[in-house]
């Protein structure tokens, strides 16, 4: 990562206004959004939107043809181009031909994308942004920090300062008063403007309509008062049918700002008469700027299903800490990273793609059903192909692909780590590694890995067999979790086997874009895990489970190693996470817990992969309650803990505040124990409490359950 990028992150993290405003907003958003969607079938709604938008993306040029034909039949002029330069030239020529001296604009990301204001201003044309947030950042000479709330990073004091300069009068920081100032300042500009420029939230091909969604009422004035209306629309806004407008209007305001509907929606189909009786000149510019190329790329086609609501930013644990400006471009957050990689160039996304921690929050709320983390992984992969792997990474993954060497080094680390360990933790690492132990201790490598403990555990011989896939963390740092798992399964009469040839699940390589390494890990594991006849392959690490059950196949397919797909599927079908299996065993009456003892409160932290990829969240809670615990839910129980594999090593400055928030939420429940199903989360949260000092025990669900088995 570049130094300047790290510096911009630190600047944002230390900006109390920014993190305060975004933090508060994101906390309130989650609650308000669910309220706004109450009584609606969100999954059905987003499927409808995704299907309609995907269908349009499949035939972009035909849909644009239809739009053009229908809008022109109504009297609008339609200009289509893939080149942002041509957009600017077109608007400039139009302005010159019509003697336009001043322009009012309602919010349009597409105009920001091509820096239209600069072009107009340089030609002596006055431009006023009229959306309040956009006007504020125009006066401040900044770029938007959020897609829907462009000035969310600014305080009322800063706004008052800006407005005071503009009106040449000392203004107070009273927000309603400041809003009035904006109304009064912009009103004459609306009335005097010769041209109004808008964006378009939806463009409907079958009717040639543009749909505009606003709260302030500025788009109504922009499209009513000036004699010329120009709508600049990215082609991803095209839909085929008018009927698609309804579901998008159902979702857009709810997802963007948790409103049932914005104050204003305008559906404009062709020019209407001006108030002096003349006909309005209406120009619609359909801009491509690499969107068609994107639509033709199987991995990125889904990006055109985006309706630009910004909900992915609102639920992102990273965005609420760093805001939009660190993304260095007009489009921010996860979706911004993807758009920047395409609309600018892939190289521009090199640093910012690393901000994604792959928690998957955004996939749950996206009304266009975009899988942003997956697209960011693909960017990572392509960047790596373009640039080659960094040397250090190459060396590390070279080791990971050589199981004997890798495990040998982990054993050696148990000894090499000694000087830094105190008890079960590495508290302080020296020099440049010190960031890694800043606010969080690392676990000491266990003296005896699970693979050395397992052979001594006598196995029941029965019909049912489970292959245990431990994963590196349980094998080498937390063998006790493996022991607990074996105890649970044995108790239910299941024989556990532990093939020693098993190796890293490949997740670290995959999440760093090193697909070749991940694929080799996949193949090595598939071979050994299927060698034995067993009903289940079980893991107590959700990231490993996801690798086995989802990623192996996807990775091999991406690389064209299709010969392995059938085996990958066979493994995936057998793979199960611990809580799901144990819950099944309890329901079958094969496992039960000691009764009659009240164990007090426990709070549960949902791990990203378990909750959002494997859809498991009720199972561990029910089991813990059955085992005698009282559930005390924490605030934001399913928000990432900041671990994210190597993320916490690459961006410790971001990982640390995410962890601090998690620790606070855990402490606020008053529960003396926090349970979770992921050894990675245990590493992060236990390490956090070690430095925090609070007496909260951090446990894997397996351990808590194994302790409560009936004798």
């Amino acid at each position, binding site marked *: 990562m570049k130094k300047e990028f790290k510096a911009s992150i630190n600047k944002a993290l230390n900006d109390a206004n920014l993190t305060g*405003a975004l933090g*508060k907003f994101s906390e309130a958003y989650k609650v308000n959004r669910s309220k706004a969607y109450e009584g609606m079938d969100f999954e059905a709604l987003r499927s409808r939107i995704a299907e309609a938008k995907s269908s349009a993306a499949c035939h972009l040029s035909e849909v644009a043809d239809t739009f053009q034909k229908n809008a022109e039949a*109504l009297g609008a002029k339609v200009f289509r181009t893939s080149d942002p330069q041509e957009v600017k030239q077109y608007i400039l020529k139009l302005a010159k031909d019509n003697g336009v001296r001043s322009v009012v604009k309602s919010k349009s990301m597409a105009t920001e994308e091509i820096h239209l204001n600069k072009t107009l201003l340089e030609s002596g044309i006055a431009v006023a942004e*009229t*959306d*309040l*947030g956009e006007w*504020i950042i125009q006066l401040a000479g900044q770029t938007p920090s959020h897609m829907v*709330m*462009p*000035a*969310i990073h*600014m*305080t*009322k004091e800063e706004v008052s300062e800006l407005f005071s300069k503009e009106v040449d009068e000392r203004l107070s920081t009273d*927000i*309603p008063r400041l*809003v*009035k100032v904006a*109304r009064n300042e*912009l*009103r004459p500009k*609306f*009335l005097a403007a010769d041209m109004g420029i808008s964006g378009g939230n939806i463009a*409907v091909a079958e*009717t040639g*309509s543009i749909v505009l969604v606003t*709260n*302030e*009422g*500025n788009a*109504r*004035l922009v*499209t*009513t*008062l000036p004699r010329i209306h120009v709508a600049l629309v990215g082609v991803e806004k095209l839909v085929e049918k*008018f*009927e698609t*407008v*309804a579901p998008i*209007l*159902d979702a857009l305001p709810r997802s963007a*700002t948790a*409103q*049932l*509907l*914005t*104050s*204003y*929606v*305008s*559906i*404009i*189909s*062709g*020019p*209407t*008469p*001006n*108030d002096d009786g003349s006909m309005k000149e209406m120009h619609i510019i359909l801009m491509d700027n690499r969107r068609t190329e994107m639509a033709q790329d199987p991995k990125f086609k889904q990006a055109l299903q985006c309706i630009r609501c910004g909900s992915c930013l609102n639920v992102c644990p990273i965005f609420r800490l760093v805001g939009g400006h660190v993304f260095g471009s007009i489009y921010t957050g996860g979706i911004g990273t993807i758009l920047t990689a395409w609309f600018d160039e892939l190289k521009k996304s090199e640093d910012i793609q690393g901000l994604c921690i792959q928690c998957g929050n955004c996939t749950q709320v996206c009304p266009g059903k975009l899988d942003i983390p997956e697209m960011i992984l693909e960017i990572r992969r392509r960047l790596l192909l373009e640039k080659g792997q960094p040397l250090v990474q190459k060396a590390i993954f070279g080791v990971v692909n050589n199981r004997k060497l890798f495990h040998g080094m982990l054993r050696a680390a148990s000894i090499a780590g000694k000087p830094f360990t105190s008890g079960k933790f590495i508290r302080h690492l020296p020099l440049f590694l010190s960031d890694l132990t800043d606010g969080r201790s690392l676990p000491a490598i266990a003296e005896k890995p699970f693979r050395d403990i397992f052979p001594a555990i006598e196995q029941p011989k029965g019909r049912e067999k489970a292959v245990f896939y431990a994963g590196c963390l349980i094998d080498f740092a937390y063998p006790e979790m493996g022991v607990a798992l074996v105890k649970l399964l044995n108790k239910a009469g299941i024989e556990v086997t532990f093939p020693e040839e098993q190796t890293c699940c490949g997740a670290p390589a995959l999440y760093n874009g090193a697909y070749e390494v991940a694929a080799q890990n996949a193949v090595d594991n598939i071979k050994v895990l299927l060698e034995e006849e067993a009903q289940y392959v079980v893991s107590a690490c959700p990231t490993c489970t996801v690798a086995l059950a989802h990623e192996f196949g996807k990775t091999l397919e991406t690389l064209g190693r299709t010969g392995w797909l059938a085996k990958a599927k066979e493994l995936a079908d057998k793979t199960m996470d611990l809580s799901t299996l144990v819950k099944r065993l309890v329901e079958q009456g094969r496992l039960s817990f000691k009764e009659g003892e009240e164990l007090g409160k426990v709070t549960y932290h949902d791990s990203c992969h378990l909750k959002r990829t494997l859809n498991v969240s009720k199972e561990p809670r029910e089991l813990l309650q059955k085992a005698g615990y009282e559930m005390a839910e924490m605030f934001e129980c399913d928000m990432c803990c900041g671990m994210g594999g190597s993320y916490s090593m690459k961006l410790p400055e971001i990982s640390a505040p995410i962890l601090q928030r998690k620790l606070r939420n855990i402490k606020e429940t008053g529960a003396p124990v926090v349970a979770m199903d992921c050894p990675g989360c245990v590493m992060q949260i236990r390490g956090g409490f070690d430095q925090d000092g609070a007496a909260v025990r951090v446990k894997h669900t397996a351990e808590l359950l194994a302790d409560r088995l009936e004798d």
Partner: protein
Amino acid sequence: MYEQFRTKAVGVGAEVHRVASKKDALDFILTFLEEEGVADAPGRYAVWADGPFLGGVDRGVLAGVSGLSLEVTRERAARAKVGISEMSWAVADTGSLVQDQSASDQRLASSLTEIHIALVPAANIVADKPSLFARINPKTSRYIAFITGPSRTADIERVLTIGVHGPERLIIVFVDEQGGAKQ
């Protein structure tokens, strides 16, 4: 459906009234204009955009109202405190009003003034978007406008503030007599 509409519209800051007859509606409006101090002075005008409701009203009565104009020009509307217009549909589940506003006077009267009074036939409340979309048609209506509550922003520190570029008050008057029986 009226009750649902009312709850939703009030929830987003609209004021909702219901009267039995057109006469009651007219009385309501004239009283309101008086109370708000509408007068023949810039900033205190009222404008009333033409529509079916006005068709049956004695225009002589309206001509006598100081500051009220039935001709909606941008100059007049920009200096008006109150704008009156008719909206065709009310959508219960979001508290929205919908109208074909292809004629610019309809938009001027409902977007430039500080207060917007919207007259709606009580029989035209529909349940939701699907029922609304069965009744609107972009092929025949060039500017379909949805209005849901007053103009709002939260662009400064996420504080909800009413009245940015559009009206800061939206007053909805349902008229039972107009096009339907009492529900």
